[in-house]
């Protein structure tokens, strides 16, 4: 326990000695490293959790169908995903509140409720797809999903209800670091290094040219890399962790490192898909791809891919469920923090528990309409993403709210370019899903 000098913000002069827990270091270098390690978390988690079960499926399908020709698109998404989440970092640190609360307060009840209902709905449907992936992977591993799915759901609830943000964060960061196994999986498939470098840095078109299938897979890649729940999750996470203005640069670094890791891991998933293609396998789903890869590597890699698939779904589930619980708590004015025990924030934990339990339960119902749910996710994400990003951009230009942390002109040029591109892509994807007859050439 150390004492700490705190300047009272009102006067800027009055000093007060308050007892706070801290660590003493002697060098500036050690101070920076330790501060980063303390701030580190929300950025990594939001980015790695974005590589959820749907992302594993999309990236491995891209690799299985088009080899490494689409790697440059993934690399192009690195600045896109970073710039969007960096805005969330500024907003979260400056206000100390979640994204849903900000929309509600600054745009009124109508837009607040619209955003909340849309978020809760798309999040729930996405959670169902996460548990569907867990079910699929467990099946391929020879584990009965009727046992495995409830166990995973129970684990997901247990990591969140400890009443300690730090405990939850440490467990989830550990799960995020397990994602490095994708590097070993990609390396084991003996990737053509020079072709990968070329495919990543030089934009190119796969053989067959620009087909509707390629367009929609590209949109799916973009859609899976930039998801609406990420905005809500990271801002609420930053607010819950109580990051300070002084932590801004470290939170940005955390987000940037997370973006680099998630994009590199996405590339590894594509390389794994490419390996199965080179061995003559046709892609059906990532679990089957794991089985196929196991035939020319070893059973270890088969299980590794299946476990990574479950890990991706678990990370996606905890982050998405929390974004729902935080957003609901913010709008309803309930206590909403992982730092609080269940008895002090019952509503917050009930939303989290209900999200996880309902999604897991739905997957276990025989002949559940999973295809309809996937379709719903795509349409609702098409509605949700542009609106969430518009609100984010407007809030980041709100000088009354953010003062010096508001967007600079160059931020706006970059962001509006991204927003217009995302609007167009979301519209094309949602239109294709909702009205497939408008695109007769697409299969």
């Amino acid at each position, binding site marked *: 326990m150390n004492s700490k000098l705190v300047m009272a*913000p009102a006067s800027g002069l009055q000093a007060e000695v308050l007892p*706070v827990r*801290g660590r003493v270091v*002697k060098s500036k270098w050690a101070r920076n490293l*330790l501060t980063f390690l303390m701030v580190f978390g929300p950025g990594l988690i939001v980015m790695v959790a974005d590589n959820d079960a749907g992302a594993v499926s999309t990236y491995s399908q891209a690799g299985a169908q088009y080899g490494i020709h689409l790697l440059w698109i993934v690399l192009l998404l690195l600045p896109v995903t970073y710039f969007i989440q960096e805005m969330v970092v500024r907003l979260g640190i400056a206000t100390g509140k979640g994204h849903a609360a900000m929309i509600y*307060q600054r745009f009124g009840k109508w837009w607040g409720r619209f955003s909340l209902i849309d978020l809760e709905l798309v999040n729930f449907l996405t959670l169902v797809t996460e548990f569907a992936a867990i079910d699929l992977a467990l099946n391929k591993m020879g584990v009965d999903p009727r046992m495995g799915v409830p166990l995973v759901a129970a684990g997901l609830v247990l990591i969140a209800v400890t009443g300690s943000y730090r405990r939850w964060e440490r467990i989830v960061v550990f799960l995020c670091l397990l994602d490095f196994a994708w590097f070993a999986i990609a390396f084991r498939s003996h990737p053509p290094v020079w072709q990968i470098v070329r495919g990543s840095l030089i934009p190119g078109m796969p053989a067959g040219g620009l087909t509707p299938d390629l367009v929609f897979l590209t949109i799916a890649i973009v859609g899976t890399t930039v998801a609406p729940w990420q905005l809500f999750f990271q801002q609420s996470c930053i607010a819950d962790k109580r990051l300070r203005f002084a932590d801004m640069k470290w939170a940005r670094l955390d987000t940037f490192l997370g973006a680099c890791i998630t994009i590199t891991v996405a590339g590894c998933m594509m390389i794994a898909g490419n390996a199965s293609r080179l061995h003559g396998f046709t892609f059906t789903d990532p679990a089957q791809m794991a089985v196929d890869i196991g035939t020319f590597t070893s059973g270890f890699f088969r299980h590794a891919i299946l476990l990574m698939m479950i890990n991706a779904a678990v990370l996606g589930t905890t982050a998405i469920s929390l974004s729902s619980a935080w957003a609901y708590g913010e709008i309803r004015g309930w206590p909403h923090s992982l730092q609080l025990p269940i008895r002090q924030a019952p509503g917050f934990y009930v939303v989290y528990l209900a999200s996880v339990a309902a999604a897991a339960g739905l997957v276990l119902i025989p002949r559940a309409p999973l295809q309809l749910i996937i379709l719903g996710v795509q349409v609702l994400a098409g509605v949700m993403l542009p609106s969430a990003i518009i609100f984010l951009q*407007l809030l980041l230009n709100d000088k009354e*709210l953010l003062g010096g942390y508001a967007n600079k002109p160059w931020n706006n040029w970059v962001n509006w370019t991204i927003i217009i591109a995302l609007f167009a892509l979301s*519209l094309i994807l949602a239109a294709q899903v909702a009205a497939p*007859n408008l695109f007769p050439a697409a299969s």
Partner: protein
Amino acid sequence: MATMTNAIESDRIADHFVVVHPLDDVPEAKVDTENLGPMRMTLAVRLSLLSLRAYLALMMLLVFYHVLDLAGLFGHRA
């Protein structure tokens, strides 16, 4: 815009530094959003929200079209 003295910078005591985890630190003064009220409806904000409404209306029309299509109203489904 609320400002706060850089907590980490002010932690320098003699020749060592005290690093405090955000959750162990004294809560920092943030922007007072409660008293700000709704956002001012400038032309840019109005245009953005109008575009968003138009986009949402278009999406609803697409979903409505899909429902009618599924119901076989356009006559080209098996």
